[in-house]
């Protein structure tokens, strides 16, 4: 049920070190959407050897946190870290022979339920980095007062190290705990509950759609939604 020790260490290190690069796209650099859950979870899956289950988790999670937006000082949940961990854990466990009979959707559901409560933790990590980054202003100003201009201006890039380091440590911690916790849940879940689990994954895309619709101009968008749904049902 559990990964052997060397695979456990290797996978945790791989996801945390490579995944943290992907997480940089979220705030620190570029923002080309490489950090969206659809891509991050697939990357987690690729690193753990099964991109297909990573993609399924990414699609289930993509809309889920979309209604939380980074406006002003609001720090939304870091869905990149959650997606990387969920994709990595699900892909790793799907490769074990003891889980060979397990439906991908059931495994995805259990992994998501075990990983998503980390949402609060990811917001704390993000806030911590942003508080720590404030020190860079003092460093830069001190250097500028000493007329060391070239070295002063590069303090801005030290922020990358802060974001990368925090993401790598958070990913390592979340991966390690989830890799231990999820097999335990799979082991303990009674057999009669399994047939329910594959369809329960529907909850995640449905909750994402609901929260997106709710955050838009409600009456107008609900009318459009109902109209398109009726058209699809008729044709």
């Amino acid at each position, binding site marked *: 049920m559990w990964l052997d020790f060397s695979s456990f260490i290797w996978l945790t290190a791989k996801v945390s070190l490579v995944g943290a690069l992907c997480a940089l796209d979220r705030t620190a650099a570029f923002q080309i959407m490489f950090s969206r859950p659809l891509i991050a979870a697939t990357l987690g899956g690729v690193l753990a050897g099964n991109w297909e289950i990573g993609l399924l988790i990414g699609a289930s999670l993509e809309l889920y946190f979309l209604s939380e937006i980074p*406006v002003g000082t609001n720090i939304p949940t870091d869905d990149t870290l959650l997606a990387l961990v969920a994709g990595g854990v699900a892909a790793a466990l799907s490769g074990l022979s003891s889980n060979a009979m397990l439906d991908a959707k059931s495994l995805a559901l259990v992994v998501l339920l075990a990983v998503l409560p980390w949402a609060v933790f990811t917001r704390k990590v993000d806030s911590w980095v942003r508080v720590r980054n404030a020190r860079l202003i003092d460093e830069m100003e001190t250097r500028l007062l000493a007329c060391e201009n070239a070295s002063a201006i590069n303090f801005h890039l030290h922020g990358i190290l802060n974001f990368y380091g925090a993401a790598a440590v958070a990913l390592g911690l979340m991966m390690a705990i989830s890799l231990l916790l999820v097999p335990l849940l799979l082991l303990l879940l009674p057999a009669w509950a399994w047939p329910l689990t594959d369809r329960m994954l529907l909850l995640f895309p449905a909750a994402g759609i609901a929260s997106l619709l709710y955050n838009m101009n409600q009456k107008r968008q609900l009318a459009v939604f109902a109209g398109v749904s009726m058209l699809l049902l008729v044709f």
Partner: protein
Amino acid sequence: MHLRLEQRIFLRSLYWQTSWNFARMQCLGLAYAIYPLLEKLYGKNSEHLAQRTRRYLVCFNTNPYLAAAILGFLVHMESQGEEMGDQGLALSGSLAGLYGALGDAFFWNGLKPMVSALAVMIFFWRPSLWALVFLLCAYNLVHFGVRYTVYLHGLHRGIGVIETINSWNLPLLRNVMEFVTTASLAVTAFLLVDYFALRGSVTSVAPFLLLLALIGWLGWRRKNLGGDRPRLLEILPVGGFVVLVCLIFF
């Protein structure tokens, strides 16, 4: 100004939020991006260069994509002399507020949900890596197009960049994108029926009933408990986890 310097400043703007902090938000990003110009203008006197660079360490926050318009404008003003540079900097605070609101509404509330919803729709229609390719290509085509165009307009037209952005009517485009998002969400809800093998007399309407229940619950929660944040996103996984543990032990 040399093309190479223009490009260098734009490339540096891709690291706009690298040191985002609660104290002065994007101030280091602004100083970092504009530094090559300051170095070219005042590089001979390091004390003066340091003083001009410090002028840019003011509290600054805006949408990271439309920040390129403000950066272009500031480069335009600074190139015309220190006094103009100071005036540009004084005006940039107001522009930051304006483009923060406009950019957040267009990119975070319009483009991102639309492209994500379409990508998820593609996945539930034909599960493949095409959903990823679509997400990256569609978003970045618009994102880089807007980002580079507003930078160039700010650079060459100065304050005229406001007219350029106004002429695009971004709020209208955002409304159009909201309609596309909603339509694709409806199609996705429809595709979920097949994907989760729910086709049947009663079960095929399950995703729609579930959606109605969730939206109703969110509305009830906002009306009765207050707060804008959809707590559903936190309650669902924690609640689900508790249910899972209950299933195990009882």
